[in-house]
């Protein structure tokens, strides 16, 4: 029996070799699917950093219009639909102090601080829980610290929504397109059944632009490399008292608030 098995393996091996070579002849070029000589590179204008971060100067954001302008800028450029119910999709939004900074740091805050709206978005954490729980690696952290999503891979399991301590993620219960008034033809929409969130405008950084919210904030939002002491974010943090959301849970958010 063992002889026949060995014999078989020998012949099967020969056969595989034969098949391999014969098909290799006509299929050699077919297998090399990438065009010879083609390459992939970063764009010429692309902005680089070791660790992208954002500083929001809450003192400069006062009126409802300030917020609306920023949110509008982001949501239009990214085709974020406005769905007026619990199925709401949001990349950037506002909320009150109590719900934003839940570590109750002082019982007696100034009423102005407590009553104010705060701008919220994905924190692009150093230790993002959403990345750890994603079963398909659809959510991942780039080398420059941005936490992004590959919607092609998202299977809509929503583990990341459960994992995110900041509620930064929204789920598309339905097709978002009917809720888009004007589609930005330069940017995709999402489909039913995927999760989405802020990308720190990684696609704008590629072409040398600042994030849309930063542009629209009239200087209230700063953006830059946290590892570079000369960056606007480091300078602002050096000069002001700043806080981050839920520091005690160790996610190390990349969004700082000057209060």
């Amino acid at each position, binding site marked *: *029996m063992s002889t*026949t*098995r060995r*014999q*078989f393996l020998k*012949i*099967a091996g020969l*056969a595989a070799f*034969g*098949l391999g070579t*014969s*098909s290799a002849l*006509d*299929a050699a070029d*077919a*297998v090399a*699917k990438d065009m010879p000589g083609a390459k992939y590179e970063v764009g010429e204008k692309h902005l680089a950093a070791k660790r992208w971060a954002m500083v929001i100067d809450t003192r400069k954001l006062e009126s409802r219009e300030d917020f609306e302008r920023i949110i509008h800028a982001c949501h239009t450029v990214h085709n974020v639909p406005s769905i007026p119910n619990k199925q709401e999709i949001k990349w950037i939004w506002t909320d009150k102090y109590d719900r934003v900074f839940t570590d109750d740091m002082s019982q007696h805050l100034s009423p102005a601080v407590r009553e104010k709206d705060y701008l919220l978005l994905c924190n692009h954490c150093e230790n993002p829980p959403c990345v750890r729980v994603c079963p398909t690696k659809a959510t991942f952290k780039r080398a420059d610290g941005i936490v992004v999503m590959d919607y*092609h891979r998202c299977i809509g399991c929503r583990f990341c929504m459960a994992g995110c301590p900041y509620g930064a993620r929204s789920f598309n219960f339905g097709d978002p397109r009917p809720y888009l008034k004007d589609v930005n033809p330069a940017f995709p929409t999402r489909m039913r059944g995927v999760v989405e969130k802020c990308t720190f405008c990684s696609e704008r950084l590629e072409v040398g632009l600042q994030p849309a919210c930063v542009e629209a904030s009239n200087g209230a939002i700063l953006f830059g490399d946290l590892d570079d002491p000369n960056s606007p974010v480091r300078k602002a943090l050096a000069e002001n008292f700043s806080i981050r959301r839920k520091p005690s849970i160790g996610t190390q958010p990349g969004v700082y608030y000057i209060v």
Partner: protein
Amino acid sequence: MFISLLAVIALGCIAWLGAASGFQYLIGVVLPYAAVLVFIGGFVWRIVDWAKSPVPFRIPTTAGQQKSLDWIKPARLDSPFTTAGTVGRMLLEVLLFRSLFRNTSVEIQKGPRVVYYSAKWLWLFALLFHYCFLLIFIRHFRFFLEPVPFALTAIEFVDGIMQIGVPRMFMSDVLVVAALGFLLARRLFSEKIRYISLANDYFPLFLLLGLVGSGIWMRYFAKVDIAAVKVLTMGLVTMNPVLPEGIGAAFFIHIFLLSCLLAYFPFSKLMHMGGVFLSPTRNLPNNTRAVRHVNPWNPPKKYRTYAEYEDEFRELMEEAGLPVDKTSEEAAAAE
């Protein structure tokens, strides 16, 4: 087995060489037509040939309680009494491989002890193979229908729902290879199955592996120009055969192996596809005592009659006080 493997490899090489040396029309048009004719003709001929022999006796293998007394629950499907039950049994058999589901394996352990294990792997992989193959067969209808009906698109959507890779990976492709691999592996590595396997058991397996393999090769790797393939296949089914330019060799290997399979089918054990419907131990109801089954060649009755019996034993019977039809005196008088 080696012969079967070599035969399939040889068939593949013939197709490849043929495609490379100008026999595309023969391989892509003439042979498929011939193969379809042989398949249909051969299939019908085999069924008719079987049907020419009668089923003299009603011999279902009863796999459950008969229908007898009202208060005993009969096994309506495993031991069917009615036509409906028999149809049900056949459906279970054909669609779900009911009998194979019962499979066990036996082992003699120290003690000595004979131990039985449930053994459903064969059932599982056999079922997987057949359904994947059916699905793949149906999916191929996109090459024969224009416009492609929604049902086909829906099947493709479900089959490719994992959305892995481009072109999207079909689960049936992976599973059919896995199932064929299992069926082959048990022939090679199970002592019992290897012992009973003949060349004509390996050949269809290798042929199917070659067929499936060449299909996978041209879909995922060689990227045959399917628009051109569809022109060819539509030409075939609309009886306007054409041979478009630029179809890769992989396609010709694929269609050649398919033609071989079609032509081989009616003359091989693959006819179990039709035969399973004609198996008298499965397709008959277990009601022979209630409804008489007629044997068309039933020979005339020939048996030792009571009269002959009494003639031999009359005196002994009378002596023992057993009743007789004719007393000894009557018998003597008759002579």
